[in-house]
C-alpha cells in the first residue's frame, strides 16, 4: 500500500521531468521554427539556422514521444481522457508536428525558392502551434475540463473545441510560446554568428520580458480562480476508479499546497529568476548560460503548475467528483515499479549520449560550410 503511493508520487515527479525535458528540448527546436523567418532573412541564413539544430532535432523530438508514452504507461486514464477529450486540438497539434521532420529533411532538397518558402512556413506552423497548444492544455487543467465516465469507465467529453481556447488558456499558451522563443533564440546565439546572432539576442531579451509579465499575470489570475480539492475518497495508494471520490470547488484552493508548505514558493521563484537572469545573460551575450537559465525557467513554470494542481491531473468541470488525480488514474503498482526501473537505467544513459552528441557537434555553424556540405539541410 505504502509503496504504491510512493511509486505514484515518483511517477508524478518523473512526468514533470519528462514534461520539462519536452519543453526545453522540443521547445527550443520549435522556437527556432517559430523565429526562422525572422532570424534568417535569406536562404543561406535560414539554412544556417536549421543546421544549428539539424543534428539534434530528431533526438530532441523523442522527449515528446516519450512524454506521451510515459503518460500512456503511468497514467492511462489521463492519456485516454485527455487525448480523446481534446480531439480537435490534438489533431491540430499532430498535423502541425508531422510537418516538422519533413520540413527539416525536405526543405533544402530542391533549389526552388517557393518550395523552400512553403517549408519555412510549415516549420513556423509546426513550431508555433504545438507550443501554444502545450501551454493552453495546461491552462485548461486549472479551469477543469467537461468530461464524465460511464459505469465501465467509458469517457465522454461534453465540451466544445472553442471552449478550450478560453482567455486563461490563451495566456498560458502565449507564456509557453515566449519561453520556447527564448530557448530557440539562445540556441541560435549559441550556434550562429553576425546578423543571426544579433537578431536572436534581440528576440531573447523581448521573449524573456514577455514571459515574466505573462507568468505574473497568470499567478494573479489563478489566485482568484475556483480550485478543486478532494473532500473524501479512498486516498493514496489504493486501487480505485474515479467513481469513488467526492470533490469540491473552492475559490483560491489552487494555492492551498503553497499555503500548507511555504517552502514550495521556491518553485515559482525559480521560474521568475530563470526568466529574469536568462534575459540578462542573453543581454550580456552569455548565450550558453542564458540557455540553461531558460531551462530553469521552464522547471519553475511547469513545477509551479504541477505543485498547484497536485494531486489533480485532470479535473472535471462538469462532474468534479470524477476528476482524475494521481491516485485514481495511475497504472498498477507492478507497472509503475517496472517503469521506474527502466527510467532509472535509461534516463541517465540518454542524458549521457545526448550530451556527447551535442559535444561532437559543438561550435558555430558557418554559412560557407553549409553551402558546400552535401549532408547539410
Amino acid at each position: 500500500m505504502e509503496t504504491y503511493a510512493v511509486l505514484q508520487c515518483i511517477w508524478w515527479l518523473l512526468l514533470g521531468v519528462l514534461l520539462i525535458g519536452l519543453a526545453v528540448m522540443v521547445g527550443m527546436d520549435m522556437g527556432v521554427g517559430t523565429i526562422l523567418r525572422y532570424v534568417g532573412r535569406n536562404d543561406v541564413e535560414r539554412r544556417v539556422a536549421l543546421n544549428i539544430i539539424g543534428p539534434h532535432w530528431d533526438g530532441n523530438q523523442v522527449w515528446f514521444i516519450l512524454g506521451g508514452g510515459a503518460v500512456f504507461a503511468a497514467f492511462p486514464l489521463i492519456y485516454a481522457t485527455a487525448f480523446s477529450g481534446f480531439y480537435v486540438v490534438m489533431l491540430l497539434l499532430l498535423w502541425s508536428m508531422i510537418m516538422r521532420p519533413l520540413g527539416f529533411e525536405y526543405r533544402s532538397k530542391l533549389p526552388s525558392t517557393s518550395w523552400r518558402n512553403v517549408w519555412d512556413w510549415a516549420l513556423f506552423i509546426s513550431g508555433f502551434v504545438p507550443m501554444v497548444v502545450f501551454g493552453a492544455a495546461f491552462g485548461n487543467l486549472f479551469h477543469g475540463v467537461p468530461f464524465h465516465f460511464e459505469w465501465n469507465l467509458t469517457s465522454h467529453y461534453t465540451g466544445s473545441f472553442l471552449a478550450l481556447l478560453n482567455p486563461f488558456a490563451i495566456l498560458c499558451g502565449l507564456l509557453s510560446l515566449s519561453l520556447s522563443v527564448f530557448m530557440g533564440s539562445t540556441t541560435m546565439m549559441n550556434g550562429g554568428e553576425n546578423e543571426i546572432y544579433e537578431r536572436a539576442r534581440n528576440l531573447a531579451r523581448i521573449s524573456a520580458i514577455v514571459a515574466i509579465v505573462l507568468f505574473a499575470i497568470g499567478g494573479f489570475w489563478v489566485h482568484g480562480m475556483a480550485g478543486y480539492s478532494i473532500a473524501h475518497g479512498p486516498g493514496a495508494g489504493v486501487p480505485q476508479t474515479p467513481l469513488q471520490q467526492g470533490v469540491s470547488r473552492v475559490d483560491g484552493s489552487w494555492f492551498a499546497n503553497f499555503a500548507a508548505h511555504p517552502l514550495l514558493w521556491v518553485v515559482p521563484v525559480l521560474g521568475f529568476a530563470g526568466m529574469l537572469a536568462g534575459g540578462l545573460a542573453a543581454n550580456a551575450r552569455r548565450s550558453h548560460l542564458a540557455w540553461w537559465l531558460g531551462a530553469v525557467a521552464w522547471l519553475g513554470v511547469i513545477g509551479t503548475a504541477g505543485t498547484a494542481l497536485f494531486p489533480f491531473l485532470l479535473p472535471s468541470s462538469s462532474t468534479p467528483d470524477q476528476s482524475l488525480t494521481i491516485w485514481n488514474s495511475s497504472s498498477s503498482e507492478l507497472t509503475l515499479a517496472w517503469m521506474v526501473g527502466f527510467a532509472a537505467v535509461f534516463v541517465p544513459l540518454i542524458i549521457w549520449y545526448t550530451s556527447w552528441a551535442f559535444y561532437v557537434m559543438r561550435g558555430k555553424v558557418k554559412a560557407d560550410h553549409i553551402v558546400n556540405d552535401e549532408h547539410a539541410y
Partner: protein
Amino acid sequence: MHDMNVVDLSRLQFALTALYHFLFVPLTLGMTFMLAAMETVYVITGREIYKRITQFWGKLFLINFALGVATGLTMEFEFGTNWSFYSSFVGDIFGAPLAIEGLMAFFLESTFVGLMTFGWDRLRPGQHLAVTYLVALGSNLSALWILIANSFMQLPEGAHFNPATMRMELTSLSDLIFSHDAQAKFVHTSIAGYVTAAVFVAGVSAWYLLKNRHTDLARRSFRMAVLFGVLATAGVITLGDALGFVGAQAQPTKLAAMEGLWKTEPAPMPFNLIAFPSQKYQTNYGEIQVPYALSLLVTHSLTGNVPGVDELEQDATQRIRDGIPAVSALKTLSANPGDPDALAQFHAHEKDLGYGFLVQRYAPDVTVATDDQIATAARDAIPQVAPVFWSFRLMVALGLAMLAYFVLAVIYTMRNIVERKRWFLVIAVWMIPVPFIACEMGWVVAELGRQPWTVFGVLPTWMSASTHSVGYMIFSLIGFVTLYTIFIIVEMYLMVRAIRRGPDDGHDAHSPHTSQAARLAGYAEG
C-alpha cells in the same frame, strides 16, 4: 453507447494511417543494417568507393526515414484520440512497451541518426561506424518493443482483469516480453524489413546498370544487396512458418480465416491453395486443394487437427453464455466495489468476460440477451474470411517470388553475368514494390485476422473506440487523407529525383554519363 459508424470510421482511419506508416518502417529497419554493412566494408578496407556507397544510400534512407518518423507520431496519438477505451482498459500493459521503446530504442536511433548524417567530418571512421550500428540497433529495438505491444493484442499474456480498477493489469512483465507470439513476430517482421531494403537497393542498382550509370557503385551495391536478400528471404519464410505455428494455437479463428476452413474435418487436412470463400454460406467456391498439407503446415504432423469455423462458432456461443454473468457482476461492482456476491460471481466467470462484452453490443443489458443476439455475437467472433485468406496467399506468393528472384540474382552475380541479363535487371527494377505489398499484406492478415477483438478474447473492437461524433471522425479522416496524399507525392518525387541524380560526385570512371548528369543537375541547382 458507441455509435457503430464511429467505430468503423476509427478502424478505417487506423488502418489507413498504420498501413501508410508501415510503408516506411520496413525499409528503415533494413536500410539501417545495410548501411552498417556497407560502412563496415569501408572501415575495414579503407576504400573510398564504399564510403560513397554508404553516403549515397544514406541519403535515400533519410528521405524515407523522415516520413517514417512523422507518421509514427500519428500512431501514438491515435490510441488516445480514437481508441480511448482501449487505452484506459489495457494502458497498464500496452503503455509500458511503448514507453520502454522510447527510452531504450527511439532515443538511441534518433539521437545517433543526427550524428550519422552530420558527423562524417566530426567523427573518426570507427566512431562513425559505431554510430551507424547504434542507429540500426535502435531502429530494430524499436520494432521489438512495438511488436511486443502488438503481440499483447494477439495473445494477451502476463495480465489479468482487476475489478477494483475496472481494467486489465500487468501480472508479469517477462510473460509479456517473452510471449512466443512476440518473439516469432519480431524476427519475422524485422527480417521482412531486411528483405525490403535488399530488394530496394538491388532494384535501384539494377536501374543504374541498365542505364549504364554509376556502374561501379551499382555493381557493388547489387552484389551486397542480393547476398543480404537471399539470406533474409530464406529467414523470413522459415520464421513466417514458425509464426503460423505459434499463431495457430493462439488464435484459431484467424487461422480458420487464413485457410478458408469452414468445417472441422478429420486429420490429415488438405490445404486450400485457391478458393473463393463465402462468409454468408460458410463455404468455399472453386477450391484447389493440396492433400495433407494443412495438417503438416500448421501442426507439423499428419495427425494434427485444425478446428473450422463451425466448431469455433459453437465454442464462442458457449463462452458468450459463460461471460454474461461476469459482465453483470462487473456492473454491480462498479457501483459497489466491495459486494462479496458480485465478486464471487465475477471470479467464477472472469475468463469469459470478453465474450460477454461481445453480446453487449446487441444487448446493452446482457442478462436479457436473446438466443438470436447470442448467435449474432458468436458469428461476429469469426473474422472476414475472404480478405484474410487472400492477403495471406498474396503475402506468401510474393515471399516465394522474392526467394526465387534472389536465388537467381545470387547465381548470376556470382558468375558475374548479371549485367548481360538485361531482362533480369528489368525484373529487379519491377521487384521494388513487391516487398512493400507483402509487408502490407502481412499487416492485414495479422490485424484483420484478429477481429472482432482489439485484444484477442478480452476486449472487442466495438467497445474500444472513443465516444466521438461522426462529424469529428470525417473531419480527421479528410485531414489525414489530404496531408498523407501530399506527403507521399512529395516523398516519391524526392526519392525518384535523388535516384535519378545518383551520387553526384562526377568521378565514376566507368560511366561517361555521370559527369554530364552531374553538370546538368548543377545547372538545375542554379
